[in-house]
């Protein structure tokens, strides 16, 4: 069942990694938006 396992692993693995990357980036951008330099101390200008 090598081909089947390989197919499932690659397909689900790539989707999982891609999803995790997006999730992390979305989280980070969300956090940065609240406390980034322009909102926090540095942005008092």
């Amino acid at each position: 069942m090598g081909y089947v396992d390989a197919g499932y692993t690659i397909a689900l693995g790539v989707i999982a990694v891609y999803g995790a990357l997006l999730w992390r980036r979305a989280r980070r951008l969300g956090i940065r938006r609240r406390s980034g330099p322009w909102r926090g101390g540095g942005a008092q200008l």
Partner: protein
Amino acid sequence: MTEESRTRSGSGAVTALGVAAAMAVAFTVWLGLWVTPPDAFQHNLVRLLYIHPPIAWVTYLALGVTALASALYLWPRTRSAFWDRLAGASAEIGVVFGALTLITGSIWGRPTWGVWWTWDARLTSTALLELLYIGYLALRQVPGSMPGRGKRSAIAALIAFADVPVDHFSVLWWRTLHQAPSVLNADLNPTIHGSMAWTLMLGFIAFTLVYGWLLAMRYRIAAAKDATEDVALAAAVAERRLEGGTAGIVGAKA
């Protein structure tokens, strides 16, 4: 309140969608790998066909959404940054799933046809589609000011989309080779076991849910990026003004 919800990765609905997608995929994998019986002709290889057609479907769905969103962006009455971001987000997911379509198809083709790649019509036109949209993504990554960039991207997406049927049929004529998509009509095929058809159906639903969740995530990233650009620009403008000594603005801000 809205700021608070932005700090988490998603709103409640998106999180629920993500959980549902993960569960549906897990269920599909369980049915596909353990519950369903091996096929009479393809034996265990048929199990790849529970994920390959759904992934291919998501590819086409994603690129269709890109084309639709681009058209809505170009239409003056519905023009908004929403459609532009949606088109870009969907295209990126489409390219990822397109690559997976080619890879899983290739893995299925190797033991079935004996080769990793064959110049068959559907394979070839999917590969072309993939390249068309990689080009589109490359175009989107070029920095530019917003109304122009959005228009340019939308027009490029529509021209690429117009090419899809032409590419498809020319390749089809060029290489009329192999089987009709019998797997897609699994429920019409009496020899296919009932649980197989259900698994395939569930696969379509599961990967569509995954697409929805990824799209929400990708869209959020695009929106946050645009927003940070705006904020950074405003900050830079304010800084220049400060240098100019217009104290009034600082006072107003404070």
